[in-house]
């Protein structure tokens, strides 16, 4: 069988997860290098409309795996369905997005298939007949080139935001959709998920903020938050934080930016003592201007920063607050 790439796309209750367009772009990009055609698969119960939506993209084929047990999502049913499907279709490479869902089932699927999984990749190149994936390690301090050593299929998940969903190539004529009805025995699914919910309504909508002052672990103590708040007040900015600060209870959870918090894109994002772990960066790298203050010049936050202040934030904050107040007074 010819080598193919399988893009595993995600839907919930008949709505495609937008990040799946990035998966399509990633698969198409790898296809451009390898010449391997791309097929896509979506799973659910009544996901046919989603499959037809996907068929608008340039793909070899779209498969819709259907079973009442595929909705709601469980890792048991998903890995059962995909293991069987991949066993039959034998793609060389399976591409997913590193969503919370893929994080939940992809390692299980890899173990069932006895194959490797490069999780959370940010790029892939085809070099000397080998797929080389780039992924961040040590909290973003280093990048690694990673290859598979075993036999295909190879599994990979890509970090959100590294391929552009709006660059997924459209099909000239709609791609064929094939519905596959799967029989998934009762005993396969051992967990019982409840409805997805949101905790008490978020009081703060950071997505609309034009200016955000965000604090990270470097703020050291709860009492120092006050200093950052003074700066935010002087600037007329919203205050936000990376996960560790919210975990410590120093700022409420609805102030959290990152993969488990809000995704923001203000005009200016001022990061104070934030190291730049990938889980945070995905939530803010769309900001127009990123200013980073960190005493560690090697901190990964400087990779995405437009303006860098390599300095202790406690030395910078007092004069900065003063300068801002002066500037505002003049204005």
């Amino acid at each position, binding site marked *: 069988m010819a080598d193919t790439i399988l893009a595993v796309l995600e839907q919930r209750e008949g709505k495609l997860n937008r990040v799946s367009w990035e998966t399509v772009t990633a698969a198409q990009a790898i296809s451009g290098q390898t010449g391997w055609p791309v097929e896509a698969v979506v799973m659910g119960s009544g996901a046919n409309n989603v499959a037809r939506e996907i068929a608008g993209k340039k793909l070899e084929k779209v498969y819709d795996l259907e079973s009442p047990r595929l909705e709601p999502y469980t890792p048991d049913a998903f890995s059962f369905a995909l293991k069987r499907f991949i066993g039959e279709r034998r793609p060389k490479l399976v591409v997913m997005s590193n969503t919370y869902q893929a994080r939940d089932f992809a390692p299980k699927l890899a173990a069932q298939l006895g194959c490797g999984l490069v999780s959370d990749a940010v790029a892939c190149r085809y070099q000397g007949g080998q797929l080389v994936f780039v992924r961040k390690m040590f*909290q973003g301090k280093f990048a690694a080139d990673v290859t598979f050593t075993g036999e295909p299929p190879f599994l990979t998940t890509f970090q959100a935001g590294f391929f552009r969903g709006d660059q997924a190539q459209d099909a000239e004529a709609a791609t064929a959709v094939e519905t596959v009805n799967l029989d998934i025995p009762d005993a396969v699914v*051992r967990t019982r998920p409840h409805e997805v919910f949101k905790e008490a309504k978020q009081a703060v909508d950071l997505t609309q903020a034009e200016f955000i002052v965000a604090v990270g672990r470097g703020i050291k103590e709860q009492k120092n938050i006050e200093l950052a708040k003074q700066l935010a007040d002087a600037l007329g900015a919203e205050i936000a934080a990376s996960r560790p600060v919210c975990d410590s209870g120093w700022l409420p959870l609805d102030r959290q930016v990152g993969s488990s918090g809000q995704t923001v894109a203000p005009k200016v994002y001022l990061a104070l003592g934030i190291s730049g772990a990938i889980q945070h960066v995905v939530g803010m790298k769309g900001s127009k201007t990123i200013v980073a203050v960190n005493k560690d010049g090697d901190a990964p936050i400087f990779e995405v920063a437009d303006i860098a202040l390599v300095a202790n934030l406690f030395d910078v904050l007092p004069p900065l607050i003063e*300068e801002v107040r002066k500037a505002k007074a003049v204005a």
Partner: protein
Amino acid sequence: MKILVCMKQVPQKDVTLQLNESGTWIREDTSYESNEPDAYALEEALQLKEKHGGEVVVISAGPARAQQVLREALAKGASRAIHLEDAGLVGLDAVGTAKALAAAIRDEQFDLILTGLQSDDCGYAQTGVILAELLGWPHATIVMQVEKQDGGIRVKRELEAGYFQFVDMPMPAVLTVQSGIKKLRYATLMGIKQAKNKPLRKLAAADLGPLGPNLLQIQRLYIPQKTKKTEVLNGTPAEMAKKLVEMLRNDAHVI
């Protein structure tokens, strides 16, 4: 409840790491700590034990220095530890590590296995889930809360963008725990003293049987290329502050 907590020793978060000569890994001579999400997994396990009785056992695969992680866990209240210490166990990928862990506990009967959702060094976020599959147990990832109930447990999972979900599942099961779910305790002086007399069992690669080859290989580790042009502000903090305010006013127009 008999609970196993899988913990990993990782380089400290705020230290600057150096690449080794071959550029395939970091230099060993740095300071280490317990992987943060694993510390939260331990805390959850200890609280479950305090509520429902039972035992908390900790396990770690790593060189001699990794014993520190286990000693700390014993000092916090775990009752015994297993250390997979062998040169042959260094540099395992997620599958290899999960196989080693599964082999090490094959003669024990745990109700729950908790571990952090990912490690701060490799960040694969795979080992716990693969371990569940190798044991034939159900799993849940990114767990925020664990409640015992009739016939199993109810866990609260974190999903994207502020969403959550409760999941009911039978035991035994593997859970990967999110950071921040409970306040971490400190080891007491008494705990540290008692830890010295708690059993710490060492296992070598030969005790675990064949683990198979790694399925992934790190070809090269390097400092990521910058994709952005960054303007670095120089001078004293006061000069930097002044320059920044000018830029915010004249270029970004936010002041």
